[in-house]
């Protein structure tokens, strides 16, 4: 993960509530080995015969260069599939600004370095409906440390961000490395926990291995 102190670029508005992870990444694409952006919004983006639906923002040439997605409430609700985050990142998105997030999605985004920023719905609505945002011409700058969003000719907007996620993006953290370091420091406590359990995991493994 690359450390970032800011994200600069263009926005794509998709001002809908409850954009679920089935919409972001339809389950039938689970077998893809990579190039997850081909699955992104597949059923919203394309007709059944795979021809593009012209009205959908990802098919709109005005948003070709967009790297910041603006959405409504509860973005990323539903399934835990991290593929939804990978698909957004493979399609070039670095940040999502929404009025709220599904928690598992937000957790996955934090691990992968996709910034999830929130603001009250009315502030997001005002932003999403700005003529230069809808025209795809607005230039946006997000300062990660403060959450400040600067856009041309508008007052700065301070966006909220979960602190662990903010830290991870600023540090370019590798969560697995961090987890392993942490477990090493806590090894004694973890072993003590394991030793103190009422149930014996080994017994369960032995029985579950023999179920004839």
């Amino acid at each position, binding site marked *: 993960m690359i450390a970032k102190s800011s994200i600069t670029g263009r926005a794509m508005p998709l001002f809908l509530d409850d954009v679920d992870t089935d919409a972001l990444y339809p389950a039938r694409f*689970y077998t893809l080995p990579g190039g997850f952006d081909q699955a992104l919004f597949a059923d919203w983006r394309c007709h*059944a015969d795979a021809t593009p639906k012209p009205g959908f923002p990802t098919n709109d040439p005005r948003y070709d260069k967009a790297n910041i997605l603006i959405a409504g409430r509860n973005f990323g609700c539903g399934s835990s599939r991290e593929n939804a985050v990978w698909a957004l990142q493979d399609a070039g998105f670095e940040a999502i600004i929404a009025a709220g997030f599904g928690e598992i999605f937000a957790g996955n985004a934090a691990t992968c370095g996709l910034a999830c920023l929130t603001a009250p719905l009315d502030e997001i609505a005002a932003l999403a409906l700005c003529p230069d945002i809808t025209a795809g011409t607005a230039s946006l700058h997000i300062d990660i440390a403060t959450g400040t969003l600067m856009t041309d000719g508008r007052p700065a907007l301070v966006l909220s961000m979960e602190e662990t996620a903010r830290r991870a993006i600023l540090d370019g953290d590798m969560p697995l490395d961090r*987890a392993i370091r942490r477990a090493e420091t806590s090894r004694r406590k973890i072993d003590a926990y394991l030793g103190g359990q009422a149930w014996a995991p080994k017994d369960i493994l032995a029985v579950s291995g023999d179920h004839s």
Partner: protein
Amino acid sequence: MPEARTFLDKVWDNHEVERLDNGQSLLFIDRLLLHELSTPRAFEELRKRGLKVANPDLVIGFSDHIVSTDPGRATGNVPGGPEMLEMFRRNARDFGIRHFDVDDDHQGIVHVVAPELGLILPGMTVVCGDSHTCTMGGVSAMGWGIGTSEIAQVLATQTLAIRKPRTMRVELTGTLPKGGSAKDIVLGLIAEFGVSAGVGHMIEFTGEALAGMTVEARMTLCNMAIEMGARIGMTAPDEATFDYIAKRPLAPSPDVLETLRRACEDVATDPGATWDKTLTFDVSRLRPQITWGTTPGEAMAICGTIPAAADARALDYMQLDAGASLLGTPVNRVFIGSCTNGRLSDLREAAAILQGRKVAATVRALVVPGSMSVKRAAEAEGLDLIFKEAGFEWRDSGCSMCPGLNVDKAGAGERIVSTTNRNFENRQGTGARTHLASPASAAAAAITGVITDPGALAGAGT
């Protein structure tokens, strides 16, 4: 005096190895459950770094999502499916993980099999790369869904760093009228409070309605906590919990059970403890529920009418009108199964309606038991004959039509009454229109070929 704590706080605290500088808790994870879809990259990550699984005896694998459900199936039936199943098989073998594979006697949906075998016990922490891990709350375990990167962390350390959610009590008051089920309660609840009411919280369900509920029904209830936005939904252990646990094939020995029972007394909510938020929901006049829209919160009484202010996009997708009744709306398919409603009690509920009746000629109806054990138990009491004689397809176990991953899908424009948990656009097939409901309501629709109040069919068979 120590601070009064809730059951949720105590289970959390029991697993907190450290409170980290960033405010997160480092939690010990008692069970990591795996399935074939969300794991390949996690194992890849371990291989790349030459890591081992820290505690393979606390990790259990289940092939369920992409498996074929055709009777006697050997593997998957969509392109890439057999390869995913083979990769999972190889990963489980290489890392020494017990794996309930497609041909295993106990194969089935992870959230059905793990509790039914006795692998999940009250007070445990359980994670899985699947959002419906909250189902474990029905046996009083704290379960939640995680992503692939987090799976890698738990594989490598058996711990997970996570910020403690706020606590929420959902008190279910009153007694559910006859003919109602846990599915009706949870659909009614989400319709009342909305799909993001639980975000940032872990839910404990309490109240009079819960006391009379079987453990299987509690699993149905907790299963859909995530549809309200809460990653975790739990019920505190009681006699029903311990009766259930004692009967599991892998139940702990009586000594261990006794220790566990005492440990559960210790995690009971202290007098004077408070939750960060409390919601109250009266079930005493609740009618069978069904969704009309494209989120689980867009639900109503099956005999009611679609709200006048209903979301236009959802209505357009579902091809329905605001203010209209759903009764009499023709359906093409009926699906009974999933981690929400694929247990023996669910099959019994549907069979009671189907007995001596036939599925309408215009409907294709499918029943997919939640596990092969559920399938055998249902066959032992003749439920399979009721389903087959009625005209249902009687399948092997798997997730089937719920996530739409194998060939069990509906076509564009087809309307389904489904006992599953998500009615999102395109989930059960591109262009498919899903109505979530209870097994009884699904069975009633199968017979009449239209959306039907199961109460209106009472009499025969029940």
